[in-house]
């Protein structure tokens, strides 16, 4: 119902806009596109409240897609395409139909005629934020890191809400490539849910990580970073082994590179994590396989033989091998 007025006017406006050669009415278009989305969202809320099927936003999405088609071609109006794209992203993310983003992204990123940098900055930031989130879903951490970092760098520093939204995804991404944030950053932007995760990474405290994940599971699941954070477990194992290695090195440097499986099991027990030899052996095998630990595992003697050079390589902004 709310969309009724908003839908007709754009219907009148866009055909005209399509015929205008210059982009003088872009601002008006922005307003229309924005209003359409907002009104559709409200209408859907109203519809859902009344027990009806909310599909206004969907309709708004298909309409904006047409608008995008008008803008995405050559010419001066292309500069407005990114704004509409961002509105589409917002709609698709809200609707959970992010797969629809792909076609829009393709048309933005494959167009050679228009340099991405020529788009308005605010649109670029929004665009990078959403595409970065998509990369998080795909677990393509380097790309996600690039896009989210771009968004963070270009986001207006006073717009803390936006920065927080970006960090919400950028922090897990950075964590998975071995980069830990400063504490003040988490505090400044109220991202305390990551505190324990980071602590666990620093300490190699598997239990803390699991507790942190369990504590904020809903939140992480909702934002979609749960699986990303869960994969930090291997890094925690790595940190744990490194700690054991350091301790062994302090005791007996000559045998430090030979780590008995029992020791690891004992350390996990100390963390109140009950794992038997087979499981730990498996974990170690995975660590070696993923190149988080350099060395090999001798099954006969149940010993992890660590490389003498850099047995626990840092990720250095590279993702864990899969």
């Amino acid at each position: 119902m709310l969309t009724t007025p908003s839908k007709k006017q754009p219907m009148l406006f866009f055909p005209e806009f399509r015929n205008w050669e210059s982009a003088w009415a872009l601002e008006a278009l922005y307003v229309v596109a924005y209003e359409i989305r907002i009104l559709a969202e409200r209408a859907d809320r109203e519809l859902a409240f009344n027990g009806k099927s909310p599909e206004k936003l969907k309709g708004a999405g298909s309409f904006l897609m047409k608008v995008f088609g008008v803008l995405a071609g050559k010419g001066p109006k292309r500069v407005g395409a990114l704004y509409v794209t961002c509105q589409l992203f917002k709609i698709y993310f809200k609707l959970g139909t992010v797969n629809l983003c792909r076609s829009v992204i393709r048309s933005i990123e494959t167009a050679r005629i228009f340099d991405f940098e020529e788009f308005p900055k605010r649109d670029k930031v929004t665009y990078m934020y959403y595409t970065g989130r998509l990369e998080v879903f795909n677990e393509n951490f380097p790309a996600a890191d690039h896009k989210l970092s771009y968004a963070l760098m270009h986001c207006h520093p006073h717009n803390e809400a936006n920065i927080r939204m970006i960090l919400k995804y950028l922090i897990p991404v950075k964590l998975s490539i071995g980069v830990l944030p400063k504490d003040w950053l988490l505090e400044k932007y109220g991202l305390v849910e990551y505190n324990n995760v980071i602590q666990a990474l620093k300490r190699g405290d598997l239990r803390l990580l699991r507790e942190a994940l369990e504590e904020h599971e809903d939140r992480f699941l909702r934002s979609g970073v749960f699986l990303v954070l869960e994969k930090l477990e291997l890094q925690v194992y790595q940190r744990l082994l490194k700690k054991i290695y350091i301790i062994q090195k302090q005791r007996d440097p000559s045998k430090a590179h030979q780590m008995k499986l029992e020791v690891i099991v004992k350390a996990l027990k100390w963390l109140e994590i009950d794992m038997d030899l087979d499981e730990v052996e498996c974990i170690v095998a995975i660590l070696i396989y993923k190149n988080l630990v350099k060395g090999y595992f001798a099954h006969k003697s149940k010993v992890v033989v660590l490389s003498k050079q850099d047995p626990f390589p840092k990720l250095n902004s590279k993702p864990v091998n899969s």
Partner: protein
Amino acid sequence: MMMMNQGVNAQTIASADPNSLEGRYIVDASQGKTSFIPSVNGSETASWTTHRVDNHSTENGILSNPSYHHDQQTQQPARNAQDSLNTASLSSSSTQGTTCAVQDYSSYAAYNPTDPYGYGNSGYSTSYYNNGYQQQTNNHSYSQQQPNHSYSQQQPSHSYSSTVGSYQNTGAPYQPLSSFQNTGSYTGTTSYSTTYYNPGDYQTAGGYPSSGYNNQTPLWNDPSYANYTSQQYSTYAPDTTSAYSSSTAASTSMNNEQHYKQWADYYSQTEVICAPGTEHLSAASKTNQGSAMSGVYPTSSTQPTSSFTPASWRTESASSDLPSLQTSATISTAHDGWKQGVPSFQNHHASPMQPHFQYSLDSKASYDNFQDQQQQTAPQGPNSQFPAAHQVTQSYQSPLPNAPSLDTRRVNMMQIPTNPRIASNLALGLSKTDKDGFTTDAAAKPAYISVSMPKPNNKVLSNDTTISMLKPGKFPNSLCRYVERAFNLCKDETQRVACQAIMKEIITKATANGTLNTLDWDVEPLFSIPNSEAVNVESSQYSSPVSSLPKYKRSPSRRSKSRWEPLPEEKSVDKSVSISNDIVQYGGWARKAPSANSESKENAVNNVKFSLLEQKLPSKNNQRPAKRQHLADGLNAANNDASSDSDKEQSLTAYYSSAKSIANTPEEKKRRESRSKRFEKGQGYRTEVNYFKPKNAGAGNLYSRRARALMLSKSLDDSGSKAVEDFDWDALTVKGTCQEIEKRYLRLTSAPDPSTVRPEEVLEKALLMVHNSQKNYLYRCDQLKSIRQDLTVQRIQNQLTVKVYETHARLALEAGDLPEYNQCQSQLKTLYAEGIEGCHMEFAAYNLLCVILHSNNNRDLVSSMSRLNEGTKKDKAVKHALAVRAAVTSGNYVMFFRLYKEAPNLNTCLMDLYVEKMRYRAVTCMSRSYRPTIPVSYIAQVLGFSSTSDGNDEKDSDGSGLEECVEWMKAHGACLTTDNSGEMQLDTKASSSSLYMPEPEDAVAHGDANLAVNDFLTRTPL
């Protein structure tokens, strides 16, 4: 008979005369025209009177009587009969010029229909009209008109009906030819007509095509002619009778005009309407009036035919006309009388020959007058008739502009025969006439037009305009256009009716003035042109009717509904109206008309046909009878051939009519079902609608109701106004009656048959049977699918439904049939969401596992996980699934295979599908991490190869697990060595580069091994 007729006529005449000058005019005109057949005229007049009497008698007695009278008249003096009819009509007309006209119209309409369709149409129309008049119309329209006429007086009409019966008898002989069909159609039509004039027209149109067309030409024509003639004559008589009867009825109730209007509306709607009308007629009075009508028709047709053929309208029509002419003189007189007096009819008849044209013109004029009156009173009715008349006149008129009304009528009649030809055999020489007829029909009878398709209407219009142009006697094209324009301006039925009336007047005047052809109708102001040219007016009227007809049809249908509302036919009419535009409708009408006729025959004559039809298909009788008649009669066959659509429509109309009358025989229901299926599209709607209506009228089956509902829903777009929105779907839901426990799954391609659907208690047994079945998965899957189908069809959603889906999902999981499982899972999701108890947790776990292991979509996984609530997460199965997820995401193969071994429910089955992948990943990982070797026994243990043994006796069972593992390792390219102690070792370093994932052994090019034909055949049960 004559005496009777005369006596009746006298009465009617008296009434007629008093009734309206127009009637007299017509009569006079007819007489004057009858001059063609002076004797005829005289006889006509006499006959008219007699006809009137007949009509009256029919009306009074019952249509059948009149029809009988007509028959007699037609037979004896076809003219007389006709005349009598005409007179009757005339009388009625005289009494109510309009009514007469209406009657004439109806008859004409019938004729018209016959023209297009041939006799069938006319028959239908007549029958419809008759029926309508007699039965419904009689009551209503008749009542309307009747008041005017003697119709009301028309008790005669009753006699008519009786006479009609006699006619039918006579018709019987004829009937064999076309008469039967005609009669059938007539009856049908009558019924229709009774119900609605329009329907009558339509029906007639339809009827014509079917019967007239088939026989078409000669036979049909003859018959049709006979019918037509009979119709005209007899029809006229019948029509008149019917009309009369109707008029009588009308007279009784004054309804004639209204009816006419309605009819006109119907006409306009006619084709469609006719169907409804027919339905109505069929339903109610179809048989009687129809019989009477048909009877009359047959008789008249038989007689008339010969005479008419001479008339040369179209030879057949002419022959029929001739008879009609001869008789026609009488008939024409009758027509005239009908219209307003025998004279006009006579004139018409006379004109029919050439005179016919002239007469037709005249008659048209008179008709016009009548029509005018009728139109005024009952524009549609008149229109339809007029159209016919116009057609006739047009075709004929071309020769004689003035004769139009009668001629037109005759022509229409003639045309009807010709029309049938045209419809069925346009090639026939009649085609012209047919065209004319069509055009006229179109103008006059939308049904025809519709039958002939819209084109005919156009033609008709053009014809109308070119009354002279159309055929010799056609209306100038400009007039047609004029009429078209006029009708296009009409926004509702009333407007159309008024328009029609005005048109009639205009055309009549134009015809009278001789300016019909000379006027530039294109320039002529619309409607404001009451007089401009009688012919033109007529044509305009006609055309207007035509143009209006469509509109009318719609509006008429509505009106008809409103008026007819009580009658189921109305709906059908409406539907038919909506459909009316289509030929099918016309055909339907025609068919209906036939059926109606048959019924009427049966009723009146108790003809075999009727009896057959009725007997065979009480409700369906109409259709079937029509069909049967068609089949039986070459004419019918011809008609059928001519237009299957029309046949269908006719059948539909027959359905309607029969449905009403016979309504709810099981056979009918079945037939309806099948038909509804057949015609699910445009026609189907109508049919269905008809079905529904009849069913409604009688006792709607679930089937019919469902079909109807479906039809309605489908037709909503088309018809729009069906008001089907509020269906009680629950009431339409199938209730299974099948007691078979075992049932093969067959994807439904049509509405489910309750006899093949199992009720819930049987389904429970079936589920149990599947549970305990030892047969293979394919069999059980098939059984479960059929159970699911039956549940769906009966809209059963309860715990049984959940059980069935759960059972099937489990079976599918066990068989590794993921697609089938996914279907069940998605259904279960909605069922659980509705709060139906089931193994919710178990399937939540399955869902989770499915996402984790098989969709490999992180976002889906996250969303699935986020949907789990705390309670669910504590469930054993869900916990297990979540643990599996963790193991998979971390690649923890040890954990995975431990979980694999202790998986609850069927989680194992889902994990099974992932085991191969997991093992390969694990071995790849090991070969990278371990140095220098790993014992295969360890691998076998960790990777679950010793699945046959429990953890306790791992070592004992290692043998089998080890062997399996070694085989697997070899298959995947692992390098195995034997160490000093003889234990098999995996050379990790060598293997790390040599491992590969082998192609699945059962891989097929198309990706689904189950699709292999041979494999499928061997696995399929039975």
